[in-house]
């Protein structure tokens, strides 16, 4: 079995951003001149790294530094603009708690839809539905539309289902944002089990304490480039110091 699960070489990702507000005349002009009236924005610039199977890696960096874009590329959602990427596995990624839910439908309906997106069958979920609702503390709201939940409850709902997903390669993006202390305590068991397992885990978050507890190494992305890659406490220490210096 290949020991390296992710190998990225000189990976870059470019987006096009509009220079000016879009108007009818500007659109016509840009079409006539075959000039798309936009600037190139490199969100990731020439980054190279390797991740070993079984590693627990934190991805840290300021807002907009490219963490989510990197996770989307690794998941296969975005294509890279240039460089090479080899992912030896099928990562299951928890990038946004509202992905795979319809706010107008009931919580019960959404359990089946959200579960399906992450590979869970209806029969399996039917047997687990009480457990999911109980874990998410939403038993009394089972037939309420999802839109009536607070943002914290919505994350609890999604996380309670996602925690049933069996995969040896998982990715999380800001998964514990807007969770209350009580549920964070509940999810601790899940992350502790992940930490002790052989699974490969990538987590992007701003919560240094959380990452420190459940990751062994860290990748610090700054302005689309890798600023530091190493042991978690060293990278987080350097990351924290960067704010004190600035």
């Amino acid at each position: 079995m290949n020991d390296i699960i992710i190998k990225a070489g000189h990976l870059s990702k470019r987006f096009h951003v509009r220079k000016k507000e879009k108007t009818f005349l500007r659109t016509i002009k840009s079409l006539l001149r075959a000039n798309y009236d936009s600037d190139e924005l490199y969100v990731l610039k020439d980054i190279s790294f390797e991740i070993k199977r079984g590693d627990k890696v934190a991805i840290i960096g300021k807002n907009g530094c490219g963490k989510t874009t990197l996770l989307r590329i690794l998941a296969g959602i975005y294509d890279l603009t240039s460089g090479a990427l080899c992912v030896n596995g099928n990562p299951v990624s928890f990038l946004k708690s509202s992905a795979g839910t319809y706010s107008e439908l009931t919580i019960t309906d959404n359990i089946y839809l959200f579960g399906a997106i992450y590979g869970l069958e209806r029969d399996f979920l039917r047997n687990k539905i009480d457990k999911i609702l109980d874990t998410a503390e939403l038993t009394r709201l089972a037939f309420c539309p999802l839109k009536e939940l607070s943002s914290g409850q919505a994350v609890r709902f999604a996380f309670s289902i996602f925690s049933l997903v069996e995969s040896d390669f998982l990715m999380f993006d800001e998964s514990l944002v807007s969770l209350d202390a009580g549920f964070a305590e509940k999810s601790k068991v899940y992350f502790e089990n992940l930490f002790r397992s052989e699974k490969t885990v990538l987590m992007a978050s701003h919560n240094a304490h959380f990452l420190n507890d459940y990751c062994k190494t860290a990748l610090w992305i700054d302005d689309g480039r890798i600023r530091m890659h190493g042991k978690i406490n060293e990278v987080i220490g350097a990351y924290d110091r960067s704010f004190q210096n600035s």
Partner: protein
Amino acid sequence: MNSKIFPFKLIIRISKLFSKKNRNILRELTRSEFKLTDHNSILGISWSFINPSLTLLVMYFIFKGRFGQKFYAYPLYLLIGIITVNFFISATSASIKVFSSNRDIVLNTTSPRELLILSQLFVHTYKFIIELVICLVLSLFYGIFSPIFILLLLPLLLSYLFLIASFGFLLSTVYCFARDIEYIWVLTSRLLFFVTPVFYKLNYTSPSFRNAIYWGNPITPFLTSFYEIIMNSGSFRLSNYLYALLLGFIFFVFGYFIFLVIENSTVERA
């Protein structure tokens, strides 16, 4: 995507599309879309039948004097035309915004994006099949029902789904680049009832108009085949039927090709 290896990619992609996991996603998406269609509505699914019934009544009273006296079972003829064109319009219109309204799924999950279009298509297909059954019952009532011809209905329906799916791929892709397509499609949809033989027969029109709407409007071969199968009047043309089957397949390959070629740019603009 390299166009030389496109056929192989297409086959791999389609085989993955119907994996166990993706079939489950498609089932749940279709179920959810179906529930959302008539969400918070008192009459629920009845609206899907009220609309064609009212159109049928209006068209029957307007056109029965001009066209209705010339052939047998005119109400059935009208109904087949209305439901076939309505199905095309409603399924394609529902697909237009599918990527932008499901942006969270498109940008945060690895589910194939085609499933979103197919789920919309299947919701409307379900309703279309019920309407077709009503047409078959009417055909029985008029004494023009033929069980042998009915066997030809399934391949035709499948090919029609291919045609609609191809428009779904194209429209939803274009919508991510230019929202104008939504307005253009609303206008086009209104014209479809007039440039498709819904309330008139093709042979009542001038040769140039007939050629234009037969070769220029992809719905026409399908609709004429539906007429010939459901209203077994001895006028079934195999060439027209085979042309419809081929057309659905060609459109599907073309629409899916365009979708796959610019899928990544589409996703980023969803």
